[in-house]
C-alpha cells in the first residue's frame, strides 16, 4: 500500500472517528491529528518525489489495483508535477482550516468530519489516474461542500446549496458523457476497454481513435464544459458568488482555495493534451473564456456591496488567467515561452489557492467580529484589529498581483509566456490590471482605513487561532513569491515533458548559464 492510499485512509479514518466524537475538543483533536498527518504525508511525498519518480510513466507513487476489471475500471493513483502541488495545497489548506475553526461549537463532530471528507475527496480528484475514480471523487466533492454550506451557512443557504449542487452536477454529468465516448472509442478501436486516464488521453492525443471530428469535438466540448463550470469561467460562474456568500468561512476557503482548482487541474491533466487533436478554435475558445473572466471579474466585483462577494469575483478573474495560460501554452510558438506560460498557469493555481485562503479568512474574521460584511458598514478597522489589518493588506496586495508575492510570479509567467501567441488577449488582460488594483484598494480603504465606524461597537482583536493560519498562509505566499523554485521546479519539469514531447529534465532543471548559488 503506497503513500497515496495511506494518505487517503488517514483522512477517511479521521472523518469516521470525528463523526463518532461528542465534544468540540475531541472532534478537533481527531481532525488536527488526521489533517496534519495528511499534511506530513504530503510533504513526505514531496521530499521523496524524485526517488519515486517513474521515468517511464512519468508518475510518482503510482499504485494500481483492481476495481471492476470486467468493464475496465481500475484503482490507479499517482502524482506528477501537476497533481502533487495540488495535493500539497489541499492538505495545507485543510490542515490549517482545522485550526481556524478551533471553537466550532455547532455540531462539531459533523463539521470536522466533513472537513476531512472534503480534504479526502479533493485529494482523490488530484491523484486519480482512472476516469471512473476521477469522476467518482469529482462528484463526491459536492456532498461535503453541500452540507458545509447547508448546515453552517447563511440566511439564503438553501438556495445557494441547491444551486451549487445542481449546477455543478449538471456540468459533471455532461463531462461523464465525454468520458464515455472516449472510453468506448478507445475500446472499440483496440479491443481493450479501460478507463485508465493516461492510456485514453495518449490514444486521443496520438490520434489513435478512428473517429469522426464530430466525436473528437464532442469528447472535448463535454469535458471542457465540465471544467469550465467548475473553474468557474464566465458565463458559467453564477453559482460561485452565491455559494461563497452563504458558505461558512471554512467552506469559502476550501471552495475557492482548492475546489475551484479541480477545474484548472482538469485542464492540465485531461484537456491540455487533447487540444492538438480537437478543432483548433477550441483553444481560442478556452483562451476567450479566460479573457472574458479576467475582464469580467473586476467590473462585477466593484459593483458588490458584500466584501465576500467581491473576493469571490476576484477569484473568478484569477482563474481566468489559468485558462489563458493553458490555451497559450499549447499553441505553436516558441518553446521557452510556452513552457513559461504553462508553468505560470500551474503556479497560478497553487498561489491563488493560498492567497484566496487569506482573503476569505479575513472576510470570515471580519464577519465573525463585526457581524457584518457590508463594505459600507465597515471602516477604520485598523484601529481595533491592527494584526488583521496587516494580514488583510498583505492578502489583498498579493491578490492584486503585487511583486514578491506568488501571484505576481504566476501572472507574469502567463502574460509574458502568452504574448507571442495571442498578443491581443494579453494586452486586454493587462488592461484589467488597474481595475483589479482598483477594487482591491477600494475594499481595503473602505474596510480598514478611514474613521472607525462606531456603530460596530467594541470590536475585539483577531484571535490566535484565526491569526495563526492566516499568518502561515501569508508567509507561504510571500516566500513563494520571493523564491518559488520549490514548487515551480517540479511544475517546470512536467510542463517541459508535456509540451516538449518527452525529454525530461531533472527536477528543478531550469538552468541559465550565467549565475550560480546565492553569494551569502
Amino acid at each position, binding site marked *: *500500500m503506497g503513500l497515496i492510499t495511506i494518505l487517503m485512509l488517514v483522512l477517511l479514518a479521521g472523518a469516521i472517528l470525528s463523526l463518532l466524537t461528542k465534544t468540540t475538543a475531541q472532534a478537533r483533536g481527531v481532525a488536527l491529528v488526521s489533517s496534519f498527518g495528511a499534511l506530513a504525508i504530503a510533504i513526505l511525498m514531496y521530499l521523496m518525489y524524485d526517488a519515486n519518480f517513474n521515468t517511464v510513466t512519468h508518475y510518482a507513487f503510482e499504485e494500481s*489495483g*483492481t*476495481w*471492476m*476489471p*470486467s*468493464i475496465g475500471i481500475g*484503482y490507479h493513483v499517482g502524482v506528477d508535477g501537476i497533481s502533487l502541488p495540488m495535493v500539497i495545497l489541499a492538505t495545507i489548506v485543510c490542515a490549517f482550516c482545522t485550526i481556524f475553526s478551533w471553537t466550532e461549537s455547532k455540531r462539531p463532530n459533523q463539521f470536522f468530519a466533513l472537513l476531512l471528507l472534503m480534504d479526502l475527496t479533493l485529494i482523490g480528484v488530484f491523484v486519480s489516474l482512472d476516469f*471512473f475514480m476521477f469522476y*467518482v471523487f469529482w*462528484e*463526491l466533492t*459536492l*456532498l461535503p461542500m*453541500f*452540507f458545509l454550506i*447547508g*448546515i453552517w451557512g447563511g440566511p439564503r*443557504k*438553501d438556495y445557494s*446549496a*441547491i444551486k451549487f*449542487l*445542481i449546477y455543478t*452536477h*449538471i456540468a459533471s*454529468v*455532461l463531462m*461523464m*458523457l465525454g468520458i*464515455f*465516448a472516449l*472510453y*468506448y472509442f478507445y*475500446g*472499440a478501436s483496440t479491443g481493450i*476497454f479501460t478507463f485508465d486516464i493516461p492510456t485514453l488521453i495518449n490514444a486521443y492525443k496520438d490520434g489513435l481513435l478512428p473517429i469522426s471530428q464530430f466525436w473528437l469535438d*464532442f469528447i472535448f466540448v463535454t469535458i471542457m464544459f465540465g471544467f469550465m463550470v467548475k473553474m468557474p469561467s464566465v458565463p458559467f460562474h453564477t453559482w460561485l458568488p452565491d455559494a461563497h456568500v452563504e458558505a461558512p468561512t471554512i467552506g469559502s476557503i476550501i471552495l475557492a482555495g482548492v475546489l475551484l482548482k479541480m477545474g484548472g487541474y482538469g485542464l492540465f491533466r485531461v484537456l491540455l493534451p487533447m487540444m492538438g487533436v480537437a478543432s483548433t478554435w477550441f483553444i481560442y475558445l478556452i483562451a476567450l473564456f479566460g479573457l472574458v473572466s479576467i475582464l469580467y471579474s473586476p467590473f462585477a466585483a466593484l459593483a458588490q456591496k458584500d466584501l465576500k462577494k467581491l473576493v469571490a469575483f476576484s477569484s473568478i478573474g484569477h482563474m481566468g488567467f489559468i485558462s489563458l495560460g493553458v490555451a497559450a501554452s499549447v499553441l505553436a510558438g516558441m518553446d521557452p515561452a510556452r513552457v513559461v506560460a504553462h508553468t505560470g498557469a500551474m503556479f497560478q493555481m497553487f498561489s491563488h489557492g493560498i492567497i484566496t485562503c487569506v482573503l476569505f479568512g479575513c472576510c470570515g474574521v471580519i464577519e465573525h467580529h463585526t457581524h457584518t460584511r457590508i463594505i459600507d458598514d465597515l471602516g477604520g478597522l485598523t484601529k481595533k484589529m491592527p494584526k488583521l489589518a496587516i494580514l488583510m493588506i498583505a492578502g489583498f496586495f498579493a491578490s492584486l498581483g503585487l511583486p514578491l508575492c506568488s501571484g505576481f510570479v504566476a501572472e507574469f509567467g502567463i502574460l509574458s509566456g502568452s504574448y507571442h501567441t495571442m498578443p491581443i488577449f494579453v494586452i486586454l488582460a493587462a488592461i484589467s490590471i488597474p481595475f483589479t488594483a482598483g477594487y482591491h484598494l477600494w475594499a481595503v480603504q473602505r474596510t480598514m482605513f478611514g474613521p472607525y465606524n462606531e456603530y460596530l461597537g467594541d470590536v475585539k482583536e483577531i484571535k490566535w487561532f484565526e491569526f495563526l493560519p492566516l499568518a502561515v498562509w501569508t508567509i507561504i505566499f510571500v516566500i513563494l513569491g520571493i523564491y518559488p523554485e520549490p514548487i515551480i521546479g517540479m511544475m517546470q519539469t512536467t510542463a517541459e515533458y508535456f509540451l516538449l514531447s518527452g525529454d525530461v529534465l531533472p527536477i528543478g532543471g531550469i538552468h541559465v548559464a550565467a549565475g550560480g548559488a546565492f553569494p551569502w
Partner: protein
Amino acid sequence: MVDYTALLPIGIVIATAVIVLLTGLFIEQKKILGYITLVGLLTSLGLVLKGWDLNVAFDSAPFYGAIVVDPFAQIFNAMFLIVGVLVAIAALKAYGDNPRQDEFYSMMLLATVGMMVVAMSKDLLALFIGFELASIATYAMAGFDKRDPKSIEAALKYFLIGGLSSSLMVFGISYIYGLTGSTNIDTIASVFGANPGLATTPAILLAMVMLIAGFGFKMAFVPFHMWAPDTYEGAPSIVSALLAAGSKKMGFAAAFRIFIVGLIAMKVDWYIAFMILAVLTMTVGNILAVVQTSVKRMLAYSSIAHAGYIAVVFVVVAYDPAPGVAVIHAMTGGLMHAFSHAIGKAAAFIAVAAIAYMILSKDGKVDDPNHVSNYDGLAKRAPMTAFLFALLLCSLAGIPPLFGFTSKFVLFLSTIEAGLVGLAIICVLNSALSVYYYAKVVMRMYWGEPKGEAFVESSTYTFVLAIAVIALIVLFMPLPGMVSPGDLVYQWAEVAAHAVTGV
C-alpha cells in the same frame, strides 16, 4: 432424467408459503411465522446465489419447455428474494402484533413466487400465470390495512387498472398466439425469423402495442403510470416497497423476455415506442417528483423515473446501428440498475415506514406522517435513520459512493456507445434534475428545525436500512487485492445479458 434441483429455490418459497398459511390457522403466537418466512427466503436466496450461473432448460415433461433457469432468471430471482427478505424483516416490526400477519406473510411469499415464475418462464402461459399470481397477491396486500381508506383506495385503483392492463395483455397475447400458433417465446421468435412478412402485419402491431401497455402498467411507464403514485402512497409502506422494488422489476423481466427474445424481429417498431415511452417516463416522473410534498409520493414518482432509465435498455437494444458491446452494456446496465434500484427503493420505502412509525408514535395524530414537513431536523431526532435514508437517496440519485451510481454509470454508458447522443443527454439531465428533489429531503432532514424531541429508533427498521446501505456501499467499493463485489454483479448481469440478447 432432468435435474430439478435448479427449481429448489422457488420450491422452497412455495413450501414456506403453504406452511405459513396453514400453521397460521392454528397457532396464536404468530410472530414466529415471520421468522419462518425469513428462513425460507434466505435459504432460497442462498441457493440462487450459489447457482447464479445455472443454465437449465426444462424442455420435457412436466413443463413443456415453459420454465427455464438461466442467469437472467436467477438475477431477477435474487432481486425478488432480496426485496422479500427486506420486506419480511420490516414486516416483523410493522405487523409484529397484527392478528392477520400470517396472511401478509403468505401473500408476500406467493407474490414472490409469482415474480420468480415470471422471471423463469419461457412460455406466455406460464408468464401470464405468474404475472396474475403476483398481481392478485399484491392487490390484496395493497389493501391490507382494512381500516385505512387510503389503503383501500390504493388497492382499488391498483386492482382496476391492473385488471384492465392484464386484459389488454391477454388480448395481445391472443393475437400473437393466433398468428404464430404457439405461446412459447422461442418458438415465436423462430416463427418470426422464418417468415419476416409476419412482423409487418397490422394485427401483430396491435398485439405488440397491447403487450407494451400491459407490461407498461407494471413497469409504470407514462401514460400507464397513473395508478402508481396513488397506490404507492396509499398502500402500507412496506407493501409499496414490494410493489416498487419487486413487481415493477417483474414487469421488466417479462418485457425483456418477450420483446428482446420473442419479438426481436419487429424491433424497428418497438424501438420507436420505447424511445418515446422512455423519454416521456423519465421526464414526467422527475418533473412531477420535484413538486411533491409527500415523501412517499415523491419516491413513487422517482421510481417511475427510474423505470424510464431502465427502459433505455429497450431503445439501445433495438437501435440498429448500436454495436454489440453497446447492447451488452445496455442490458447489463439495465439489470444492474434494476438490482440497485430494487434494493435502494425497497429500503427507501421501508425508511419512510420507519419514519412514519416514529412520528405517529411520538407526535401522536398528524394528518399525513409522510409529509415532508415532518422530516424537519430528522437528523437530530433520529440520526441513524436520517443518515441511512440520506445515503439511500444518494444511491437513487446516482451519486457515489453507492451502487446506484455504478449501475447508472454503466446504463448511460451504453447510450453513448450506441451513438444515441440526444437520448444520453436527456438521461443525464434528468438524472441531474432528480438530484434536486432528493436533496430537498436531505436538506429538510439535516438543517430543518426539529419539531420535537428525539425519537427512539426502532432497531428492526434501522437493521433493514443498515443491511441495504451496507450492501449498496460494498457493491460499490473497491476491495484491496480482489475485484469488487460490484464486479461480480456485473459479470452476472453480463452473462444474463448474453443469454437474453444472444449477442
